[in-house]
């Protein structure tokens, strides 16, 4: 009897476990890779959804022999995100699914008006949205950004979207900001949010060779997304940082400022620093700079105001010396290190001044200041996010050039005309 009842129970369990209420086929869904929001016309907001076209997994042909695109962008005006997604389901014959959403794009207008929490903020509650999605502020409309957000050179869209984020670690020209970070800093009492600044480059900033010199000549790193003087390749680019006070975008940081910010936050990995040769200012030196270790930050209070000592520790490797001066020599390398320390210190101090002027802690000083408080009540009473303007910061930079690449010295170029150069 016991055996029969156990067999019966197991039979019922097996029967009930064959499927469940949540069973769905993969092609029941339309997978959204990027979501964007702009101000709407027909309704309050305009939502754009970039959807992967799963038919391109096989032969890349659509109906009529035409090559099927790897993605489709659908735009709709709606009062809120979920309403928009739900209405779109009626025309797709599939349900929009956000489990593979990699980026959330908000237009600059939305960011500057402080509408993020109203438009996209609530989606964090949604189970399908992964908090690892990147948060982007687009200099153009989110719709046009998403329409351009696809590879123009031979990689898949998923590879492009994943790979772009990784470039933050290789260059330091933009931060790697995920939804969970952005959302928690929106509510934070010890730091304020930033987002990736992105744009669509129409290639108009690259002037023709015979054109007159650009009168508004700007250093490459001092530009922002959409302004890089280049032509060809992907039209979209990530470059710079959007700085928020609460949910309102209040400033932007260019590429160089972004690097310094990342160094001070301890999030900088590596990037190529190019600067004027101190002995031949018309020429440049390139150094691959890495963060040796996270910055040492000490906080003390003087007259109730925080005094923050920051020590940045960096490693460098010489990549190029246009002047061919022997900086590899041990007595000259120290000089080069001092020059670099001076440049970085100056840029860091300028960035701290900018943060103080905006009264916004995008440098994450609050995460160090909080260690001086013993209870949450004391900390909340102190109200750090209003105190940034009272900060006194002392920056110390330590650069050590550890490598000279594949060369240990530079010999001069020989020739009749170039002799002695």
């Amino acid at each position, binding site marked *: 009897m016991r055996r029969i009842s156990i067999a019966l129970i197991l039979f019922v369990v097996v029967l009930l476990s064959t499927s469940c*209420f*949540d069973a769905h086929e993969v092609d029941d869904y339309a997978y959204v890779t990027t979501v964007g929001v702009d101000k709407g016309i027909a309704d309050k907001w305009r939502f754009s959804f970039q959807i992967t076209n799963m038919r391109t997994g096989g032969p890349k042909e659509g109906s009529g022999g035409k090559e099927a695109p790897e993605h489709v962008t659908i735009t709709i005006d709606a009062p809120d995100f979920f309403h928009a997604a739900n209405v779109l389901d009626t025309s797709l014959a599939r349900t929009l699914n956000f489990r593979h959403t990699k980026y959330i794009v908000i237009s600059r207008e939305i960011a500057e008006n402080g509408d993020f929490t109203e438009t996209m903020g609530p989606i964090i509650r949604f*189970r399908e949205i992964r*908090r690892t999605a990147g948060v982007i502020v687009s200099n153009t409309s989110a719709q046009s950004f998403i329409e351009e957000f696809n590879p123009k050179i031979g990689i898949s869209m998923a590879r492009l979207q994943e790979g772009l984020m990784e470039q933050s670690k290789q260059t330091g020209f933009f931060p790697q900001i995920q939804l969970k970070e952005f959302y928690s800093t929106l509510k*934070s009492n010890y730091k304020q949010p930033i987002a990736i600044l992105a744009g669509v480059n129409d290639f108009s900033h690259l002037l023709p060779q015979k054109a007159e010199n650009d009168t508004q000549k700007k250093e490459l790193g001092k530009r922002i997304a959409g302004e890089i003087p280049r032509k060809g390749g992907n039209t979209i680019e990530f470059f710079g940082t959007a700085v928020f006070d609460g949910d309102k975008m209040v400033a932007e940081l260019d590429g160089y400022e972004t690097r310094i910010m990342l160094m001070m936050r301890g999030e900088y990995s590596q990037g190529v620093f190019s600067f004027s040769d101190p002995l031949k200012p018309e020429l440049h030196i390139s150094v691959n700079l890495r963060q040796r270790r996270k910055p040492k930050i000490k906080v003390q209070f003087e007259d109730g105001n925080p005094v923050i000592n920051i020590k940045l520790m960096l490693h460098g490797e010489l990549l190029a010396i246009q002047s061919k001066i022997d900086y590899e020599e041990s007595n000259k390398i120290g000089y080069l290190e001092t020059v670099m320390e001076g440049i970085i210190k100056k840029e860091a101090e300028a960035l701290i001044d900018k943060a103080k002027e905006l009264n916004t802690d995008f440098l994450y000083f609050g995460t160090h200041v909080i260690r001086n408080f013993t209870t*949450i009540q004391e900390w909340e009473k102190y109200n750090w996010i209003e105190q940034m303007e009272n900060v006194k910061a002392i920056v110390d930079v330590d650069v050590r050039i550890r490598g000279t690449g594949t060369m240990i010295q530079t010999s001069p170029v020989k020739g009749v005309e170039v002799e002695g150069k």
Partner: protein
Amino acid sequence: MDEGKIGNIEMICLLVNAIACKAFFTSIAAVVEKVGTAGWYMTMISAAVSMGVFSLMYMLIKAHSGKNILEIYDETVGKKAGKALALISCLILFLSASITLREFTDATNVYLLHETPPGFIVGMFILAMTVVCCLGIEGLGRLAKLLSYILLFNFLVVMILSYQRIEIYRLYPLLGYGLGNTIKNGIVRSSAYGEIILAGVFAKALNDTKDAGKIGYRSLILGGLVIAIILFAVIASFPYFIAIELADPLYIMVSLVQHGRFFQRVEVIFIFTWNLSTLIGLTAIFYGAINCYCHAFNIKDKKPIIISFAISIYLTTLIIPSISIVLDYVVPNLRDYGWIGFYSPIFIAWIMWFFFKRRKQTYYEKN
């Protein structure tokens, strides 16, 4: 029904799962809401308080060799009062199992099986619990030991993988909402470890009831360690004002694991741990409740009781209409006042024994 015997490690596995499985659900957010960043060491205070209460229970077990705590109740306070104490233990264990099962169902519904009716999830879970209970304490102990090593490995893997989200500054301010508040909540919330009474309920399943002491202390240390590690990881991964918002902070923490393009979405490992640990833990609590009930009414055959308890727990789990009521009223009340149900029978029995029976017992032993 032949109860059989289980080893010490098997009993520890049972108790640790029964204690720690609730940390996979909403309790973490509730702790952070109460004590802020001090949650990770508040739970150690709770564990220490539970150890104190367990010491009282162990004194009783030591003084009544070969008896479980339910039989000791009968001996110290009399048959009728002992029955009442056994029923109090039964009720609190039943409620604990029911509420944790409800938390499990809601978490499963929110994160995994969105369209499956809660009744189906609860039903399937209870079916598994019933099958294991029918195999008795021996089967339950073997299953607990078999799975616990895998669960421990999985738990450590997900914790190690989550290290990249951990930022030490989130543990500041170190005293949370104040030391006094932390100690007060640590004492009140000691009911989180209330399942340690199962060491007394199942004492006769051990080869020697005196082993209950070392088993209990080790289970409390291990359970406390697991809960403290979970709280530490969650508090260091999310700022305190975000951790209180999350329905299941541990699940979210694991879902954020991302090591490069390929090594991500490892929450399946966590779901495996979450499900099996809850199955072992809740089955132990459920079986403990059945034991208390059968003892109170002197019922020898547990099988019909298992089935009626299964139906009752199904109904009580589903009777609460929404997750908001579970979070706002049910779980906080169980955690804040649960110690009364878990520990008051022990206090009463210990007081009666210490002041009225101990000397007589010593006299008899000497002569």
